[in-house]
């Protein structure tokens, strides 16, 4: 009598222990290259996905170090969502070491969100490295432009639906709900930025152009005279002169960039340097997509007042 009850107990316990695993197994395991895409994929995928990012918002995505821990994340992934436009080419090396056929180039689980994005700063002339770390396809830092969220999320919906076609209606519904909320916030952000429309700013690295353009601000220059190349003293002198002449009061610096240098330039030019969230999680309180844009909008609206 005792033995059968023990067996039944063991089976029940085993099933109970396995149950969460079975539940978890239903979810799509998605890995994204940059944290902006984690937030957007979570918004679209909802409870149907488990999302992990390969990088953090405080990192420079151009120079991410390929660690085996990335390969471990990718080893189990059903999908890899990547920015594309040559921002996260390092993901190829991580994928190569992950031995996971689901996410190799050309596989259904490889989702590139730059498809259909009207990229800015697409070179119209011959490009080479004398121009710095240029991107022949255009500026790849578009993910924090809320106006492009419909295209990005549509790419994510399409990608996830390839893997789980039955869940497309849910993904579409989640996307619509997210865009509705984003639309409401957008109205508020637009009002907030209205008084500073047309204001000029200087950025350290050209990764804020989409955001500025969206809200009617003008990036008149960058501290880097060429992308990815440390600024030369001559260039800084020129920028300081320009900032003084045009009365520019704001320098935007990525969390990973040289804030002290930006501060020195700002002091010389009679301006102020601010760290903006160049990605989700880049600064405190920017844990998701909307919070990140909220942070940047508030920062600029106050700084340019």
């Amino acid at each position: 009598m005792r033995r059968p009850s023990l067996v039944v107990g063991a089976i029940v316990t085993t099933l109970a222990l396995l149950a969460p695993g079975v539940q978890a197994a239903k979810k799509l395991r998605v890995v994204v290259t940059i944290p902006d895409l984690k937030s957007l994929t979570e918004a679209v995928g909802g409870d149907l996905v488990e999302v992990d990012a390969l990088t953090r918002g405080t990192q420079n995505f151009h120079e991410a170090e390929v660690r085996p821990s990335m390969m471990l994340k990718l080893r189990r992934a059903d999908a890899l969502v990547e920015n594309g436009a040559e921002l996260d080419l390092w993901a190829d090396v991580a994928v190569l070491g992950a031995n996971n056929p689901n996410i190799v180039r050309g596989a259904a689980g490889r989702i590139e969100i730059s498809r259909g994005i009207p990229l800015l700063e697409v070179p119209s002339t011959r490009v080479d490295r004398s121009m710095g770390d240029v991107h022949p396809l255009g500026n790849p830092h578009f993910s924090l432009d809320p106006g492009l969220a419909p295209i990005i999320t549509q790419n994510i919906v399409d990608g996830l639906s390839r893997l789980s076609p039955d869940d497309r209606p849910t993904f579409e519904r989640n996307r619509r709900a997210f865009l509705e909320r984003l639309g409401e916030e957008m109205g508020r952000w637009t009002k907030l930025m209205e008084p500073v429309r047309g204001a000029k700013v200087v950025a350290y690295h050209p990764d804020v152009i989409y955001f500025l353009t969206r809200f009617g601000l003008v990036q008149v220059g960058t501290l880097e005279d060429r992308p990815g190349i440390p600024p030369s003293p001559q260039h800084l002198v020129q920028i300081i002169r320009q900032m003084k002449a045009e009365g520019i009061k704001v320098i935007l610096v990525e969390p990973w960039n040289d804030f002290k240098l930006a501060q020195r330039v700002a002091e010389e030019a009679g301006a102020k340097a601010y760290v903006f969230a160049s990605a989700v999680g880049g600064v405190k309180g920017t844990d998701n997509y909307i919070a990140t844009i909220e942070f940047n909008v508030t920062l600029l609206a106050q700084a340019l007042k």
Partner: protein
Amino acid sequence: MRALAFVVALACFVGFLAPPAIAQDAEALKKEIEQLRKQLESVTERLRRLEAQPAPVTPPPAPSPAGPPAMAPPPPGMSLAELARPRQPFSLYAQRGAGQLLFDIGVTGDFVGNLTQSNVEKAQGGTFAGQENRFFPREVELSLFGQVDPYAYAEVRIETGEEARGQELGVKLAEASVTLLTLPLGTQAKFGQMRNRFGYSNMIHEHDLPWIDRPNVLRNFLGGEGLQEKGVEVTIVPDLPFYLEGLAGVFNGDNETAFGRGTLRIPLFTGRLRTFLELGDENAVQLGMSVASGESTEKQRDTLLGWEGRYKYRPEGWLHPLLTVTGEAIYSLRRVLVEVDTDADGLTDLIKKRERDRLGWYTGAEVQPFRRWAAGVRYDWSEFPSNPGKERSVEPYLTFWPSEFLRFRLAYKNTDRTHRETPGANDGSARRVDEVLFQGTFILGAHPAHPF
């Protein structure tokens, strides 16, 4: 009068022509109205469908500032809402224009120079034997890499370099391999000619090494160019809670320093286990063990065991590691044939088999306080795999990167030996060697990111 007649004639002519012209216009107008009606219906239908969807985010129109380029307008006839709808892949991508290659091309140039004592030059006992007190192209490499198809990735590297003083440069195939990416159970297979994944630094090409020269232990046990073989490697990354990569390979065994049989009948077998630990966000360690076993040209078994470790400390928010510590050790278990003169008559009486167990290792640390500058030191200690004797060297160095694609290195290397593994032509000793090494490296075009 003549003018009046002309006007009347013209009026009559126009009068004759007018009815058909009016009739044609009416027909054209009819067609146009019909076309417009159809377009209106299509637009109304599209509007109805759009209204049925939730309101998309409607950001304000982008301004057209003087400085930065304005937002590229959507293609004619396409609204942002249309762009957001599901579509055929590549339909928009194609609008960026053609000219994108299906694979990447890169050229790397690696030039080194060295200054040393004249006796070292005579004995050819420097780090770059036979190239002492010279500046020369060590490795100029053309790399082609990319997807073959959805199932495979290929890499081809063709290189040239000056291997000896005054020698003409020859072009050779450094690497040509295909990796099958879609095998089951977390496996991949790579076949072709490749740098073997034996330890940490063997698989790294000269220009990518974290030092100017390959560590002594690798040069002594595997030859100047390291272990490069033709064959097949299979890797497996099992689905475990921690990272573990297992590797097994079968190769010809062409490397004459360690093996040299060069046949698959008696192949060279390789194996490696590699794991990785992250100690918080800032600290990471990679550990590995390797083995390579084959037969030498003397038809004797040679087995190499390798251990590797690499630690990196990257403070929060830094673009580069502040501290990197690397170490590798190789233990060689080699059987050699020794000629024995039992009666001391100067003639070989018999050939005996002897075991030669030899060890070599190196360790190095690098500090990179600034993005463009790094300084480090490497210490090498190595026995010679067949002959008696050992050597040790210490090499401090300084690295400067003007950009991601250009690098300069300056090093000083001090070497002490008890013997030379292979004495130079004039039998010079070169037991104490002081060298100043210089390296300039550039990358043109594409270059894949480097793993940890």
